[in-house]
């Protein structure tokens, strides 16, 4: 059975005054039904851009330059905008980070949750609001709060509201972009538990985006690591953590202080994130990589399968091939 979502060679560019920003390059991953996949990496590495691209929500100066997004076997990249609108929220929805501004501050919460229901299913307002109330209760909020405004909720509760809203049309895939970043640790745990429970009960597929690996460790079965727009490694969560292949992943995992064992200083990865307008030649990580050798500066490693379900893009592994130089042609989307 084909995966629910299969992304291949997704490349996204932004046109800015300073030049063309290569936000994402050659991203490839897949998500099965009911599976949770984590997308990890530092700020600005392209995770959110990828997520937005999946729903074709890129800002006006961004475009998908290459690649395919296969949802239930259908490539979404060439789909015209009005058809896309029918897909949005109904097939897949998104929960943003820092729900401070993700909800319309001048509209009541109930109305916002009911809005997509009325839109996509052409339901009556009364039925929609009843469903909105059900959804609130599903995430643990009393349905009396349907008529409240977003600013009357705490941060954690706003996030729950957003989750309830995301589930409004029974989507098959929910993308959660930094769902717990702005919250304190106790609330973080609650929200993650909630997501996990909902996923199991509703058989949802999820893409969880975070720069915090610990968030992904518990909830996801698969993890994809991104850096400066490129995919570095992907595989089963357990495997990635216990045996990271890519030096970057090793760095990330090694940056964790371990409660058990001797007290070692966590290792930081030296250097800074490169510019996305003029990325370094060859492997994009080589300036910060302690294993870098000559080939790394000249050619770009391709994301290659090292073993079943495990892929990495690093020349340390002999199977890894080089990315062929790309033609400059740009496909309009």
């Amino acid at each position, binding site marked *: 059975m084909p995966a629910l979502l299969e992304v291949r060679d997704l490349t996204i560019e932004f046109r800015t005054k300073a030049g063309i920003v290569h936000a994402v390059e050659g991203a490839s991953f897949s998500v099965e039904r009911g599976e949770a996949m984590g997308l990890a990496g530092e700020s600005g590495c392209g995770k959110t851009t990828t997520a937005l691209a999946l729903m074709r*929500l890129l800002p006006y100066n961004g475009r998908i330059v290459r690649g395919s997004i296969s949802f239930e076997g259908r490539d979404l990249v060439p789909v015209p905008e009005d058809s896309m609108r029918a897909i949005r929220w109904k097939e897949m929805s998104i929960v943003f980070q820092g729900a401070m501004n993700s909800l*319309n501050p001048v509209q009541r919460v109930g109305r916002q949750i009911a*809005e997509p229901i009325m839109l996509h299913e052409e339901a009556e307002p009364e039925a929609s609001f009843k469903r909105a109330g059900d959804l609130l209760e599903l995430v643990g909020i009393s349905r009396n709060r349907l008529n409240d405004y977003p*600013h009357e909720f705490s941060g954690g509760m706003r996030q729950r509201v957003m989750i309830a809203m995301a589930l409004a049309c029974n989507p098959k895939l929910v993308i959660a972009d930094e769902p717990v970043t702005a919250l304190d640790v106790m609330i973080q745990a609650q929200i993650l538990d909630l997501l996990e429970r909902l996923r199991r009960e509703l058989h949802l597929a999820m893409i969880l985006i975070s720069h915090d690996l610990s968030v992904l460790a518990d909830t996801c079965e698969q993890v994809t690591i991104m850096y400066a727009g490129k995919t570095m490694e992907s595989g089963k969560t357990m495997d990635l953590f216990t045996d990271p292949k890519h030096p970057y992943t090793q760095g990330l995992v090694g940056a964790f202080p371990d409660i058990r064992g001797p007290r070692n200083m966590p290792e930081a990865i030296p250097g800074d994130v490169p510019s996305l307008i003029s990325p370094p030649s060859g492997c994009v990580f080589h300036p910060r990589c302690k294993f870098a050798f000559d080939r790394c500066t000249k050619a770009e490693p391709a994301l290659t399968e090292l073993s079943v379900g495990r892929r990495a893009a690093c020349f340390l592994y002999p199977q890894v091939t080089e990315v062929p130089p790309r033609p400059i042609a740009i496909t309009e989307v």
Partner: protein
Amino acid sequence: MINAGITIFGIICLNYLLIRLMPGDPSLSIIPRDPKFRGLRDYMISFFGLDRPQWEQFVIYLQRLFTLDWGVSYQDHRPVADILFHDLGWTLLLVGTSTIITILIGIAVGAYSAVRRGKAFDFVSTGIGIFLYGMPIFWLGLVLQSAFRKNSVFQTWIPGWPALPTSGYYDDRLIPWNWDIVHLADAGLHLLLPALTLSLGTLAGISLVMRNSLIDVMTEDFVTTARAKGLSPRQVLRRHILPNGLPPMVSLIALDIAFILGGAYQVEVIFRYQGIGFRTIEAIGSLDYPLLQFIIVIGGVAVVLANLLSDFLLLWLDPRIKIS
């Protein structure tokens, strides 16, 4: 609300001070010692008690103010209060009409510019906006007046160029006011040019502010959420962007009300429109001091009330604001 009260009181006091405490001028000398002004001097002395001690004068002033006993105009011997309230009505009509026009067009242009940001329309309209922003309203009025008068140059150039009445509605002191269609239509026609001038003058500011406010809103996360829900761009604009873009605009307009009123005064003078502004200029020209005394108060109160109104409007529009 208390603020408004204090402000009004402040205006009253300031007005008093202004007239009285001009550099080195005791009040009596504001009226020239020309024999032809004898009547005025006597009147002023008796009405305002100018021969009494200062503090008493102030009390008399306050008394007169609040009892709406504002004396009699020197020019035409009608009660000042009557004249001023009557004129205030006309001024409010002018400002009200033009503000409505301005807001409607301003929102439309601003929204269109914000959505088509960076493209031709935005560039052109913003440029025109900044250009118009700096245009002296009286000059604009003059140009429009000359363009639309009966034998204007434009009539000879462009056939069918309409000739609009170029003065404000003739005062109904002599003609009793009827609410029938003929009168209303005529009043409306006479209102057209002045309102148009004032609208154009203030339009630029409002559409620019609207545009910026909307652009700020458009970059917020909840707009992306709205798009993510599958709403069409128009739905997103109407339901999410606009309701959030309006409150800042209302606050900014409120701040500008004094400025708008200043523009209204200019328009009134140019078009001989019988409002507060026109009256002020006349009063200065004919040294009608009783009138001048209270014109400032009226103007100030109008502004304060307008600000209060906009505060209430904000309260209704934006649920985040609470009465503290």
